[in-house]
């Protein structure tokens, strides 16, 4: 097990470098960011040259990348164009997005798995059909539509919630955005769980457990659900990274100043430091989430053992 973890951690290194290099190149291809700092007027050449030097943009790309990575390992993610340290931006943005992601994941787990189990056990019944139809609707409607409609109905028409989240972004204000963010994944989780449960219901070990006379609750939770959760856990694990990075739409609609917002701003302003910094952290989150998922397999299904 220990060996397996170490091997996985080592594998993360090339992935990490590859991903950051790619992002670095992509942002670089977009052209000279300093030109946008002076508005509709051309930056005067002397100031532009000094700004380029300050942000390290005057050197060849490979050198910029090397310097950048060197700094990252000392915890220095550089400075954004508005003079703020990228680490400062991160410490403001990540807690918010993590809260939002937690809310979304909890919705996915609680609602998604519950509905999945419910429909999986009653396949073909009216409940199943209704939930399936509902998930189909949720999947087919883009997030921004769900978000805007909920914002309009709950925030403006009925006045139940504030249409936007305040800058402190406490948990209670994040419930609706979290639900919106989770909606599509939630539908997938439901469907995955349903299929998995329905399949395993006919498995030998379930029949054995029932034959042993175990109470139904125990059969479902300990035997059936535990084995059926593997694909679901895989999905939710990879979704952590996707939710954090892909929250741009939801964050925009509800005015949440999280990672998505910072990334969006960074891309618009072509701030290499901001974009690469945030993406670097997101890549790490993604890799770690995947590792945890893999380790969870062993917990869920004792037959899976890592050498």
């Amino acid at each position: 097990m220990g060996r397996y973890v170490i091997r996985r951690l080592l594998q993360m290194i090339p992935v990490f470098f590859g991903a950051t290099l790619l992002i670095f190149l992509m942002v670089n291809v977009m052209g000279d960011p300093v030109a946008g700092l002076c508005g509709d007027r051309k930056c005067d050449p002397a100031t532009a040259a000094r700004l380029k030097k300050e942000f390290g943009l005057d050197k060849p790309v490979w050198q910029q990348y090397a310097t950048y990575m060197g700094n990252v390992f000392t915890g220095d993610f550089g400075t954004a164009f508005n003079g703020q340290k990228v680490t400062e931006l991160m410490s403001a943005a990540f807690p918010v997005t993590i809260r939002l992601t937690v809310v979304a994941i909890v919705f996915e787990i609680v609602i998604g798995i519950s509905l999945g189990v419910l429909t999986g056990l009653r396949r073909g019944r009216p409940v199943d059909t209704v939930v399936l139809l509902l998930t189909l609707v949720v999947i087919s409607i883009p997030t921004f539509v769900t978000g805007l409609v909920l914002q309009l109905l709950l925030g403006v028409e009925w006045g139940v919630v504030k249409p936007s989240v305040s800058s402190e972004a406490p948990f209670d204000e994040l419930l609706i955005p979290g639900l919106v963010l989770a909606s599509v994944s939630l539908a997938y989780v439901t469907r995955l769980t349903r299929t998995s449960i329905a399949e395993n219901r006919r498995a030998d070990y379930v029949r054995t457990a029932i034959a042993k006379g175990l109470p139904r609750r125990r059969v479902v939770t300990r035997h059936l659900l535990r084995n059926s959760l593997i694909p679901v856990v895989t999905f939710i694990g990879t979704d952590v990274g996707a939710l954090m990075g892909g929250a741009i739409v939801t964050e925009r609609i509800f005015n949440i100043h999280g990672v998505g917002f910072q990334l969006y701003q960074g891309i618009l302003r072509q701030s290499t430091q901001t974009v690469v910094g945030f993406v670097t952290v997101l890549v790490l989150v993604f890799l770690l989430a995947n590792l945890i998922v893999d380790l969870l397999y062993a917990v869920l299904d004792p037959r899976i053992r890592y050498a």
Partner: protein
Amino acid sequence: MRGATHAKWAACAVAVALAATACGGGGGGGGGGGDGTGIVSSSWGDPQNPLEPANTNEVQGGKILDMLFRGLKQYDPKTGEAKNMVAESIETKDARNFTVKIKGDWTFSNGEKVTAKSFVDAWNYGANLENNQKNAYFFAYIDGYDKVHPEKGNPSAKTLSGLKVVDETTFTVKLTQKFSTWPDTLGYPTFAPLPQAFYDDHDAWLSKPVGNGPYTVDSYTKGSKMSLRKWDAYPGPDKAKNGGVDMTVYTDNNTAYTNLMAGNLDLVDDVPAAQLRNAKSDLGDRYINTPAGIIQTLAFPFYDDEWSKPGKEKVRKGLSMAINRKQITETIFQNTRTPATDWTSPVLGEDGGYQAGLCGDACEYDAAEARKLVEEGGGIPGGQLKVTYNADTGSHKEWVDAVCNSINKALEKDKACVGNPVGTFADFRGKASKQELDGAWRAGWQMDYPLIQNFLEPNYYTDAPSNDGKFSDKEFDRLVNEANGETDNAKAVAKFQEAEKILARKMPAIPLWYQNGSAGYSDKVSDVTLNQFSVPVYDRIKVN
């Protein structure tokens, strides 16, 4: 009935979720009464640059500086006239040497006195290349600028030789050339005075700026919120009529508008394009749509021989006549733009140099004449006009497509004009300033100060900083120089208009339309107006 239990549980979770959110909702905004203590909540955009006077060149940072600082002059929010604020008098005999006297009773909100030195030091700081201030060029007219801000290499001086402190309330300015309307440029926030605290602990100052304006910064969370409070001891004549302003950064102005509708926000100073259609019925009188000092144009590449050779002005004029400005401003912009008929802006007023119809027939839609002119001029270079724009902000795609449609229809060719989107504003600006664009591109000018000089010189003078198309005309340059040397304001304006007539003949850029500022506000506040820069006049807003 296991399943049913599960369903119930899920339903409960959702109900709890909704209820909890409801508890968190409501409240916000307003407070106080009509006694000048109420707080205005306003939408805001994240400033692009650090908030310091000589480093702020866009409107989001600018509106904060407007609240925090008072300079020598202040533009009247109604007429745009530059009136003395901190200045007692600014005098000159030769349009080149100025004596500035300031009023003695001004202080910064930290108690420091505003002296002649506060201005001179701030200007020296702004001009010095080593401080990387993006607005440094504003000081380029002052003698010695080439020493503190050389085009290459390191500065050989730290201070501008043209600035001299005479005594506590007097300083003199020597310019590199005659510039009669120079005192009127001093209302721009870049020329604001700075307290000693700015230099002593720069980082601390940036995290909580201290100025001499009607407001002080109560708290500032970068990127999300700034709370400004009325400064009770403010010595100026324009004390704030409200208790303060809470500026909240919105990721999307649609969200800000939604919040205004829901009653969580008092003021939105940029009504999103998608809502313009509804704004009038949603807000009634609380929707503002007033002219601002912004003009949008189509610029051409004069560095390209095909566009600069004689005779091509006919093509440019023809293209101009092929654009149905009236129709586009009505349908696409819902009348938040006014068809342009000169190269300035109506906010200047007739005395300030705005002259309706100066462009003449060339700015009137006439398809037949357009076709004739383009043909006479030898057709569009390359057979097709590419109009470059940035697709990331604004609704540029919509109007560029409309302009091209109009041109195609008038010229009776399907592909005479096409839009050419560029990903980001920075990329667009990079290409434009390096002369890498061909065809035409969207150009725009938001005035720095309400002067006709500011509309003409930076855009069309030979090698001027915003003259991306590299238009050059000796006669135009000569007239601008003469206008700048003219001590009489009316004569100066007349000279500028003479220069502008050359633009009408040569058509270096096609004037499209003047842009309005648009805003909406809640019924909790009143006396909301926009100034010529399309920025709300925050200090006059009353909370009901």
